[in-house]
């Protein structure tokens, strides 16, 4: 350890070398990523054909989703023929990270590119995807839903509030009327009851709203390391736990069943969830034929069929499986996310 320290000029020289080498690596990595990003702006041969055009939210002959196919329309809400989801895509020009629609109303969670940082906002869309009003978001978008009447919307974002402890995440879920009235910015302020007891904990998180009507909804609430299916009521501002271990519920069009992701015992911690269906009258839960882990709020294509996203070559693909536990899943469409089936 008795070596003579380097001279000052030698140390400055070594610093210069380090700056050049590290700077070179940094610039190289950035250029590589920039080149890859640029390639995604170009349409890939063999990919689905996407062209600009008029898109409506209330056309029952069309299905809608966020296209993830490479090209200039990537991330836009696109329409495809309802009977041919892998057919040509008509791109609306509206980019959304998360999207849902019902009765001619859309909710779009999108990024806003600012000068110093990106922010997110929720935009309420009319039937021609024109913005009606928008709300700033506190974090990264994850879930969005519109009520069956199209008069109420809800969304969930992930919030990481503390930059010094980057591992503590929480969710924030908001509900608002599409006329801009009755904003509940944070459903955690509702009174939560579990097993008949009022819960006040600071660790309450609520996410994944699915609407029964404009007053009543279902969602997931978590506290003390457990998740619950809760029934929410906007009139009384209450959340009542109905059933344990339910995340991201999705109510069937006839209002009798919920599709949801269930954390299953003994599963690989990397792949903890399976797609289940809960009968609301009997509270009987049944697995679907999808045996892979899913991390999505499923959508009911009709009263018998579920559609959900799984990771794919372009980010995500849409898959479908019968809701009654029969059959096997099959891929509905590639490079797509956030499906909507207007009725």
């Amino acid at each position, binding site marked *: 350890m008795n070596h003579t*320290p380097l001279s000052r000029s030698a140390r400055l020289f070594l610093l210069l070398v380090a700056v050049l080498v*590290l700077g070179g690596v940094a610039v190289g990595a*950035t250029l590589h990523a*920039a080149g890859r990003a640029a390639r*995604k702006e170009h349409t890939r041969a063999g990919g689905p054909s996407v062209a600009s055009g008029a898109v409506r939210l209330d056309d029952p002959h069309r299905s809608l989703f966020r296209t993830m196919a490479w090209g200039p329309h990537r991330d836009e809400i696109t329409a495809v023929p309802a009977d041919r989801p892998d057919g040509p895509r008509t791109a609306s020009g509206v980019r959304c990270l998360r999207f849902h629609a019902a009765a001619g109303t859309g909710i779009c969670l999108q990024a806003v590119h600012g000068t110093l940082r990106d922010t997110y906002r929720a935009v309420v869309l009319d039937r021609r995807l024109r913005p009606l009003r928008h709300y700033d978001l506190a974090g990264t978008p994850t879930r969005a839903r519109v009520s069956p009447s199209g008069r109420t919307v809800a969304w969930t974002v992930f919030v990481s509030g503390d930059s010094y402890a*980057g591992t503590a995440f929480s969710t924030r879920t908001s509900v608002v009327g599409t006329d801009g009235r009755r904003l509940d910015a944070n459903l955690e302020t509702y009174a939560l009851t579990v097993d008949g007891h009022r819960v006040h904990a600071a660790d309450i998180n609520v996410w994944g709203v699915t609407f029964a009507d404009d007053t009543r909804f279902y969602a997931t609430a978590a506290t003390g390391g457990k998740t619950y299916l809760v029934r929410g009521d906007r009139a009384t501002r209450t959340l009542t736990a109905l059933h344990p271990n339910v995340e991201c519920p999705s109510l069937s069009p006839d209002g009798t069943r919920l599709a949801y992701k269930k954390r299953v015992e003994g599963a690989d911690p990397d792949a903890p969830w399976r797609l289940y269906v809960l009968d609301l009258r009997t509270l009987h839960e049944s697995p679907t034929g999808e045996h892979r882990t899913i991390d999505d709020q499923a959508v009911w294509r009709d009263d018998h069929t579920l559609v959900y996203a799984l990771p794919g070559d372009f980010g995500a693909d849409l898959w479908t499986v019968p809701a009654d536990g029969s059959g096997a899943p099959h891929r509905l469409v590639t490079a797509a996310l956030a499906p909507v089936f207007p009725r």
Partner: protein
Amino acid sequence: MPPTPRTSAASGPADVYLADRSGPSAAAPTGERRAGTDHRPGRRAASALPSTVLVLGTVSLITDISSEMVTAVLPLYLVAELGLSPLGFGVLDGVYNGVGALVRLVGGRLSDRGGGTGHKAVAAVGYGLSALCKPLLLLVHSLPLIGAVLAVDRTGKGLRTAPRDAMISLAAEPAVRGRAFGVHRAMDTAGALCGPLVAFVLLRAAAEGYDAVFTVSFCVAVLGVVVLLLFVPRRVAATSQAAAEQAPDVPRTPVRALLKRPEVRRLTACAVLLGLTTLSDSFLYLTLQRGLDLPTGWFPLLPLGTAAAFLLLAVPLGAVADRIGRRRLFLAGHLALLCAYGLLLVPPAGGAALAGAVLVLHGAFYAATDGVLAAATADAVPEDARGSGLAVVQTGQTAARFVCSLAFGAAWTAWGAGTAVLTAALGLALAAAVSAFLLRRAVPAQTPNSPSEPA
């Protein structure tokens, strides 16, 4: 291990390789320093902070750019790129905190070995460990593994903190120590504020270029280690010549010996007591957001408010600490926090202005306590156990704050948010009163800085 010829030849204060400015500071007459708390010598020395402090500040600045780049993009990366739900990620925080406390103590203890050469070595290992975690993030794609990498990253942070603060305290004259720590904390916070901006620029240049962010973060972190290795002296010289002679007298168990020193005991007791009533940042922001019903888009900006106030106030308050006494300012900082609690308890009127006031008070609290506690600890701990002493006090504080988080969460569950904050405020007032009593005799900084400053 014998001291190197270089260090023994230049055993004056601030033996700094880069030190064009160490001359005047080294020449600061010992008598004047001992004469003490008259602010004039303090001010004069303040104009020439030893370059080791600035180099360590630079290392922290660079390292914080690197780590905050990753912190800023991590939620988006997990949700948008990997499609993971980061909920429940905080579950391991308790484990991290326990391991972190242990690692910090070990880091402080190890760094005191080697007659002063240990500080740099342990700090380098800590910085290096965190740097190595960045490329690992490119390789792991599941929550448990990402959590493990972040835990190793924190381990590196835990290892390096005490030896780094020990080097700052050894490099800086006692008369300017508060300011030296203030400058270091300000540079550290500046890096933390820059990191997210760098990440943002990268993601703008390369959409979804998270791999680029992690790679650049790695390069930046390595640069920090390089600066540390090249420009921080292997043995940061003690601030007085007495240190070398004192070394053999210290028992082989400095931690136990340290806790026998009444000053260290009092300071640790106060740090723990006050830590027990210090709400975590997340709880403070949560309470603020709930209580004032702030616009949702503000939530991500709240930590920036605290950091900006911390950045602006760290240096001036450090200098104030040198004048009026570090312990006194440490207590005053907690009164700022108490005022912030008071504002949280005010009925939600005043919205934005009130939120701003709470954040300024919160930043002032950090500026008046974080580096100042380290400086006050340095006053009470002999040089050859500086790393251990800093680690003991800081670990006590961190552990106490963790206990406070658990208790506050439980109080919130049982009584609701308002009562929980009120309880924390009453507890803080009580803790501050007890601390003022405990520290009263030791208030101004003239207390002997033994053994480095034999009276």
